[in-house]
């Protein structure tokens, strides 16, 4: 008596592949669901990573071209932090003159106390209470130094500063809160009891995102109307590659005897709104991917089930030739695994292609994690494996006598 049969792995693979190759047209339809599902997954992951790389490189660019200088802070006798130094009045001009510096501005917060910023002169109790925007003061080239974009009107200039004119720039958010949509009619806002003319609206900045929710007035005007104002930061835009030079020279320019009382840091980019939009889109793609993958799995299961019932005669013959139930099951499981893997590989390729195409159309650099891409292809195989389990069990349980009776072979 011979030993119990062991399935030679190579025989198993050959027999399974033969079963798949027998019907190429059906194979195409069977893998379609997995292809679409895996492609959608790879596209989602790839677009996410590509956009992420894009955001990261945007952050890098901002950090390489913008510096922020602040007074060193030290703990005083009262236990609270105090600035160890203050900016000289012409700080912006001094730093802007340095080689490699392109623009500089001092920015400080103005304490409003009980006063507020409103669009109407008198307080109307019937109006809903709105939180007042904060008030900032700036000098020098504010727009240039923080990489701001003036969507309407213009920024204030050295003339406004010299005359301490009552002009105000509104961050887009602040403008919306105050109900100001246009500056063409030269609208006024009241800061405390003083009327200021709105000359421009900022809708974007590269750094200092607090500007968007604030009203910004010239530093000289602020000091005239609201008393002393302490600038907390000197924002500087520098040319690419000048970072270490300016970082070294600026503190000396500000206070040659105590340069170490200033801290220089690369600016961090203002938060990115498009990222959130991307997330919503990613969720939709992810859902499409998961749903089509499930559908693909059901497709494979169905076709394998159909194949099992069509090939009953073959199953009976294999049993007569000495196949065990396990060997029959292994053959069908491997068949659907290979179908799933095939779908996964094709889907991953389609997904990679789509990511590259989308990135190219936007002028982005495509970023895609190799392990995740290969993982998606393997996921297709796993789907096939799971989908094949039930049909394979059915095939294994068919009685050989029934199977041989079922379909006459050729």
């Amino acid at each position, binding site marked *: 008596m011979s030993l119990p049969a062991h399935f030679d792995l190579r025989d198993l693979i050959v027999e399974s592949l033969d079963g798949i190759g027998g019907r190429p047209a059906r194979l195409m339809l069977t893998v379609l669901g997995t292809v679409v599902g895996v492609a959608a997954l790879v596209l989602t992951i790839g677009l996410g990573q590509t956009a992420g790389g894009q955001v990261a490189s945007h952050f890098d660019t901002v950090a390489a071209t913008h510096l922020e200088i602040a007074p060193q802070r030290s703990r005083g006798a009262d236990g609270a932090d105090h600035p160890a130094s203050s900016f000289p009045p012409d700080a912006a001009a001094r730093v802007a003159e340095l080689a490699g510096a392109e623009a500089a501005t001092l920015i400080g917060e103005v304490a409003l106390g009980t006063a507020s910023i409103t669009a109407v002169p008198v307080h109307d109790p019937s109006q809903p209470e709105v939180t007042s925007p904060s008030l900032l003061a700036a000098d020098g080239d504010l727009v240039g130094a923080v990489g701001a974009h003036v969507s309407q009107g213009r920024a204030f200039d050295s003339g406004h500063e010299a005359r301490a004119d009552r002009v105000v720039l509104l961050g887009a958010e602040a403008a919306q809160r105050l109900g100001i949509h246009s500056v063409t009619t030269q609208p006024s806002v009241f800061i405390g009891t003083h009327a200021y003319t709105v000359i421009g609206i900022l809708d974007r900045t590269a750094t200092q995102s607090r500007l968007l929710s604030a009203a910004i007035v010239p530093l000289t005007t602020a000091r005239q109307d609201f008393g002393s104002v302490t600038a907390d930061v000197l924002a500087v835009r520098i040319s690419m590659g000048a970072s270490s030079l300016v970082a070294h020279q600026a503190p000396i320019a500000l206070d040659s005897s105590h340069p170490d009382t200033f801290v220089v840091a690369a600016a961090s980019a203002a938060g990115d709104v498009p990222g959130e939009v991307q997330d919503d889109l990613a969720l939709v793609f992810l859902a499409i991917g998961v749903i089509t993958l499930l559908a693909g799995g059901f497709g494979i299961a169905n076709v394998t089930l159909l194949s099992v019932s069509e090939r009953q005669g073959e199953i009976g013959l294999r049993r007569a030739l000495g196949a065990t139930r396990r060997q029959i099951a292994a053959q069908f499981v491997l068949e659907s695994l290979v179908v799933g893997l095939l779908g996964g590989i094709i889907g991953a390729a389609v997904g990679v292609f789509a990511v590259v195409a989308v990135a190219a159309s936007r002028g982005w650099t495509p970023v895609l994690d190799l392990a995740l891409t290969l993982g998606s292809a393997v996921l297709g195989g796993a789907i096939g494996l799971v989908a094949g389990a039930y049909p394979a069990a059915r095939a294994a349980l068919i009685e050989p006598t029934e199977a*041989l009776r079922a379909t006459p072979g050729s």
Partner: protein
Amino acid sequence: MIVELRQVGREFRRGTTVRALNEVDLDLAAGDYLAITGPSGAGKSTMLNILGLLDRPTSGEYLFDGVATSGLDDRRRSALRGASIGFVFQSFHLLPGRTVLQNVMLAFVYGRVPRAERIDRATEALDRVGLTHRTDFHPGTLSGGERQRVAIARAVCTGPRLLLADEPTGNLDQANAESVMQLFDELNADGLTLVVITHDIAIAERARRRVGISDGRLTEFAR
């Protein structure tokens, strides 16, 4: 003894109980050539399936080559079937997508034959059934007689101890049936133990032993 059936019975329960085999006793020695005849539904195929380890008796014992088979699990029964029993069916059961040679070689997948020997042994088997010139043909292009001879080559290429044939000439014309029966005579002359089911008395007469089955009961005809 290659085959010993001891009071073998087989019942099918499907609503009503059908006794397809009833207390069957049979011994087959090596080199025997047995023909089984009987009306439709008498239990001939049921008996052949039990002899081929494709089905199990519901009562009695079947000893193959001295081994009681009732205690064997699926693995051992399958291994025994693959190594020691060959089948020939009325409807050939060839895989249409494979060549004649590949169809024969399928038997080696489950019969534990080393890969290096497979082509030679399959070619040899095809030579024996006179189909050397058809090795690369597909079954669809062959005559019925040729197809059945491919099936016989597949059944004998692993060197079985027992060959079971259920109506092997049922789909063949006179001439082709004759060539298949001629082949069986030769295989038996070489020592292969044969069991053939047939409703054709002329074919049954060629066997050295004849049994008839009627309502699941077996009677042996004296020669």
